[in-house]
């Protein structure tokens, strides 16, 4: 019996579990393999939907589905978050006190926003990385009657398109409310252009110029002064605001740091095999890796497909055959009714096309198709 244990029930863990259940159907039916998934939650959240909650386009209740309904019935699913990893003895201990052994382990515990790591940011900024924060952002936007809006982005962060999307969507939102003459936008970004992807930055900068969005690059927030309503940067500059919208810095989950598996909660991972550095039977996917690629659902999705194929082979025939090539795909909402996308990998940069209504509508459709995607049907 080959036991595969997956720790984390987000996008990566769910896709991997279903992928393995499908590939190992005969082995599972004949008790030669098992797939177990441990999650911290009985509900699965569609995290990209939080952006739409902030603009009143989705209700929070639309973001959730019971995790069990997403899983192949042969998967052993437990809501039992892991508290300690004993990689030398191939077992983990969970909150319930139960110990789970494995032959192969996949860790995909994800990441979390840590606005508190920038003094004053949590108290003075709105963001869209939790349900509560997205609901509060919606209320802040709804009641804003004009003034200076500043957008600040922390490093690292999940979903690399969110800083741009928030800006484009706020612009259209206030345009619809006929408040553009009373609102100014200052967009800041940590590096020397307005997006990490050079071609995306080249596309977005003229859009910002057209919209009158001011931008300041090489800006990493050091602290927020809520009284003076100013953001001070590590680089010595200052941006003033009446409404502060943040993309907070992120960390991996605390359990990863507590178990000393990786600095800041990111586990050192082989970029091709997705094996944890120094371990042959432990794999990492999604936000949890320390790989220099986007922390995004699509990254976890593509990694899970590679890992599913490789783990199925390891559990049945021997060696892994596929490598992960750094594939990422991100939609980019360019306002309320237009969108484009960026598709890239380790070797090929994206070539974003002009936004269209068709891509926007496809993104809205994907917001619903996601559930079939994690089930392994897409």
């Amino acid at each position, binding site marked *: 019996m080959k036991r595969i244990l997956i720790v984390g029930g987000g996008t990566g863990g769910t896709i991997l579990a279903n992928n393995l259940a499908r590939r190992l159907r005969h082995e599972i039916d004949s008790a030669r393999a098992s797939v177990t998934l441990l999650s911290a939650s009985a509900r699965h959240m569609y995290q990209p939907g939080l952006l739409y909650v902030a603009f009143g386009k989705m209700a929070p209740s639309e973001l959730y589905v019971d995790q069990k309904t997403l899983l192949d019935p042969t998967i052993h699913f437990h809501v039992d978050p892991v508290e300690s990893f004993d990689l030398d003895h191939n077992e983990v201990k969970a909150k319930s006190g139960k110990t789970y052994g494995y032959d192969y382990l996949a860790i995909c515990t994800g990441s979390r926003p840590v606005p508190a790591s920038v003094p004053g940011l949590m108290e003075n900024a709105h963001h869209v990385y939790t349900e509560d924060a997205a609901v509060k952002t919606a209320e802040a936007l709804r009641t804003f009657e004009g003034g200076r809006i500043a957008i600040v982005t922390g*490093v*690292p962060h999940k979903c690399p398109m969110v800083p741009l999307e928030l800006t484009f969507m706020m612009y259209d939102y206030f345009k619809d409310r006929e408040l553009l003459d009373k609102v100014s936008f200052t967009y800041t970004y940590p590096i*020397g252009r307005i997006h*990490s992807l050079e071609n995306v930055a080249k596309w977005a900068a003229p859009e910002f110029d057209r919209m009158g969005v001011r931008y300041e690059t*090489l800006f*990493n927030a050091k602290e927020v002064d809520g009284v003076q309503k100013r953001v001070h940067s590590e680089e010595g500059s200052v941006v003033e605001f009446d409404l502060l919208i943040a993309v907070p810095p992120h960390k991996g989950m605390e359990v990863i740091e507590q178990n000393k598996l990786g600095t*800041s909660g990111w586990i050192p991972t082989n970029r091709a095999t997705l094996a944890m550095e120094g371990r042959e039977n432990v794999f990492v996917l999604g936000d949890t890796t320390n790989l*220099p690629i986007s922390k995004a659902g699509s990254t976890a999705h593509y990694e899970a497909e590679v890992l599913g194929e490789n783990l199925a082979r390891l559990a049945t025939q021997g060696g892994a055959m596929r490598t992960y090539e750094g594939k990422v795909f991100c939609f980019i909402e360019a306002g309320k009714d237009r969108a484009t996308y960026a598709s890239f990998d*380790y070797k090929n940069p994206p070539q974003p096309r002009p936004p269209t209504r068709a891509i926007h509508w496809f993104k809205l459709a994907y917001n619903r198709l996601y559930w079939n995607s994690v089930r392994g049907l897409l």
Partner: protein
Amino acid sequence: MSEATIVDARGSFCPGPLMELIAAMKAARVGEELEVLSTDRGSAEDIPEWIKKVGHTLVSSSEEGGVYHLRVRKAK
């Protein structure tokens, strides 16, 4: 020369070498050295520019076989 923490940002279009370095610098101790590996030619200019602006130290910079090596020290 003391050992530097390697920030392997080869093949990184997003978030890219500088963003990887900024994240690693946040987790580093003052005085610690980090070496960024990058296949992006622009990093050889972007990273020194940011290092100078924030006040950290660029220890060395070189290119070998299409890979840029930028070693920096966290100064504050």
